[in-house]
């Protein structure tokens, strides 16, 4: 236990994702040694982001106004929606330059063991959009791990009966890797998702 404000800082840092009590202590003492201006810049950045940035009312991406940049861009195709877990996944998909529709951010994934179900995610909001926006295709772009797959299966079960096209991103081998290092699950999925070679 440390003097009041130091302990308070450690406690607050310890609540951040991926930061355990030991890391919290290390970061706290790093901050204590920091020049005043640097520490203030960090504090201001947190205050600013909370004051100016919120979530897009339509897709739950981070946004400076009511609607995010993606939703305001009229060149994007509003009939096709890519569903992701977190705003950072939008950045990853955008880097491919392969997708020109809109997004929907679930703000998490289903995790039965942690008690995170569909009610804790932006699922209701997605269903409302399908109804209201004339969406024709939904691409389920959740992580290819257990939680992401569970989320995709759950959403497919909800969306398919509504008569729209529901697709899941393919799983396969990382480009530039060697086959012999692939795990059998990934290689199995890659075989399932094989496609005709253009000649």
């Amino acid at each position, binding site marked *: 236990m440390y003097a009041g404000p130091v302990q308070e800082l450690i406690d607050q840092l310890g609540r951040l994702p991926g930061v355990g009590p030991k890391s919290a202590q290390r970061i706290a003492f790093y901050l204590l040694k920091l020049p005043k201006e640097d520490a203030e810049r960090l504090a201001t950045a947190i205050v600013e982001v909370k004051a100016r940035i919120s979530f897009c009312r339509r897709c739950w991406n981070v946004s400076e106004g009511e609607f995010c940049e993606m939703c305001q861009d009229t060149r994007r195709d509003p009939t096709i929606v890519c569903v992701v877990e977190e705003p950072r996944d939008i950045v990853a998909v955008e880097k491919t330059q392969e997708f020109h529709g809109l997004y929907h951010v679930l703000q998490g994934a289903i995790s*039965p*063991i942690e008690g*995170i*179900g569909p009610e804790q995610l932006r699922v209701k909001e997605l269903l409302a959009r399908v109804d209201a926006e004339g969406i024709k295709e939904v691409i389920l772009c959740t992580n290819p791990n257990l939680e992401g797959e*569970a989320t995709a299966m*759950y959403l497919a079960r909800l969306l398919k009966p509504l008569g729209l096209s529901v697709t899941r991103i393919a799983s396969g081998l990382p480009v530039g890797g060697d086959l012999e290092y692939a*795990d059998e699950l*990934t290689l199995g999925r890659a075989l399932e998702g094989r496609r005709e070679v253009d000649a």
Partner: protein
Amino acid sequence: MGLYRDQGVVLRTIRLGESDRIVTLVTQAHGKVRAVAKGVRKTKSRFGGRLEPTSHVSLLLYEGRELDIVTQAEALDHFKAIREDLDRLARATTMLEAVDQVAQERQPGARLYQMLVGGLRALAARNAPLLVPAFFLKLLALEGFQPVLDGCAGCGAPEPLVAFDLTVGGALCPACARGPRVSPEAVDLMQRILDGGLAGALNEPVTPATAEVATLATRAMEHHLERRLRSVTVLD
């Protein structure tokens, strides 16, 4: 101990730092083990999908002070039928959650590991309505809390048994009755599960009695763990 080999089932994982995970496993020889899988969240990780909940793996681990380190992992079963069916996945998760609560760190208990592997294999083969309830009842028995079902848990009187209360130790006669009511069919099913009739019980189709056993077994498990099983209702 340094490097050691073991087999285990991944119970859960939590994110650590930029790209690592802490993986909790129940193992054959070392009880519950918590180990760091470095870089496992990178898409090019050599662990691939091998270290996710439900995965049954053969491991090479390096013993650390608080957390061990996974240095190699090879898949023994990856239970595709479970991973690709939301309903089975939810049931598997419930088994993992209960085992995670019961298992003690670094306390060898091969029986728990074997039960879980058996349960997951049975679930992958067929989604039997009584599988998870049977798993809970067997787990309670393994923990030394096998419910009394061959007579009243209160006074020893023979059938009829009309109620079930784990705080008393099992099924109860009309005179001792407390806790939830139970049908003779449900008592019979639970007896069969615990008395060598498991295979037959797993062939039972969904009936009011199997639903009753499912509720009682979950409640009994939760009573023993002194907490709710979060995964039971999350996808209902």
